[in-house]
């Protein structure tokens, strides 16, 4: 009887420890300088909001006289797009593979607006993407439970742990094992993709997660994955899973 009680107490302690285990994940925001944090906190200082303004205008504007604007089908973005960015990438039935938010916007243009897709990283695409992402700001990242996403997510994780490039480094080696250390003068962040598209001071421009990933791949001297390639979306899919529950900060500011 005593032994049972002890065992139950042990289990209770373990459960309790689990419940209270602090989240070791740190948003890139936590490690920025107070000045850069202030830029992100204040929409009037955040240069990404200039692009969001464009996105709001594009949302209302029909691409041609025969097609509807985004707002024509979806209505007000504040209601229709709330939580959308926090759940992407999602599975596209026609393409039979996961797609990210920018690809969804372009597919919507092709399928429902009979227009040509925007080029990757074009100002228009970033504007719409950041405007849609803004509607989920502050919401927890909630990857979709779609079983079709499991295999691509696993491939994304494999890619995350795959050593690449002349420097022979994987994402995990820097952002899991050496996060918090320094690379030259810069802090190595944990690499959470919780603010994209974001304004990066180094770029002096707004950029997407894909741009950032390609940046990192060039950094380890690997050939970067192409914009919109299935592999880069799978990697984004795994990153969203890795960041589940963290608050979306889009459009964020990063150094």
């Amino acid at each position: 009887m005593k032994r049972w009680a002890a065992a139950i107490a042990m289990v209770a302690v373990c459960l309790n420890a689990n419940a209270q285990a602090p989240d070791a994940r740190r948003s890139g925001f936590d490690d920025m300088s107070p000045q850069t944090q202030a830029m992100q906190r204040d929409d009037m200082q955040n240069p990404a909001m200039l692009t969001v303004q464009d996105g709001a205008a594009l949302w209302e504007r029909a691409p041609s006289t025969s097609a509807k604007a985004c707002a024509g089908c979806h209505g007000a973005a504040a209601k229709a797009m709330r939580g959308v960015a926090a759940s992407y990438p999602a599975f596209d039935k026609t393409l039979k593979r996961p797609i990210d938010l920018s690809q969804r916007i372009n597919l919507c243009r092709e399928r429902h607006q009979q227009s040509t897709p925007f080029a990757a990283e074009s100002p228009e695409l970033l504007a719409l993407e950041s405007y849609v992402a803004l509607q989920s700001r502050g919401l927890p990242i909630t990857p979709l439970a779609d079983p079709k996403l499991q295999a691509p997510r696993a491939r994304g994780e494999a890619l995350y742990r795959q050593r690449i490039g002349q420097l022979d480094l994987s994402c995990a080696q820097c952002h899991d094992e050496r996060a918090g250390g320094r690379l030259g003068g810069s802090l190595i962040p944990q690499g959470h993709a919780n603010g994209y598209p974001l304004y990066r001071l180094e770029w002096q421009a707004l950029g997407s997660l894909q741009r950032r990933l390609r940046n990192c791949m060039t950094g380890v001297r690997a050939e970067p994955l192409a914009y919109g390639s299935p592999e880069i979306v799978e990697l984004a899919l795994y990153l969203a899973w890795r960041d589940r529950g963290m608050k979306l900060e889009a459009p964020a500011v990063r150094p």
Partner: protein
Amino acid sequence: MARTLLTVPPTAKRGEVIELRTLIAHIMETGFRPDANGQVKPRDLINRFSCRFNGELVCSAELYPAVAANPYFSFTMLATESGTLSFSWEGDNGFSQSESAVLTVT
């Protein structure tokens, strides 16, 4: 047409010090950087910013290549009377942008 974000309090008490803030979208190309093909990109800067209240200068600044893209200004002003604030930015290649905001002093 460049995009701007202005922060001007719509109303202020007489004698109150108010903060004005401006942000403008501009690439602020220095004229020293090469592009992907090795050609130097032509300089494209905002050279001068000024803010006037009912025609009287409140704040002005000259900008140089070391200023980052999308220049942001924050400055203060003593609210004495109601009037119009006009902000203007001038730069290379005939760049010119102006915005205005109404301030009501009670």
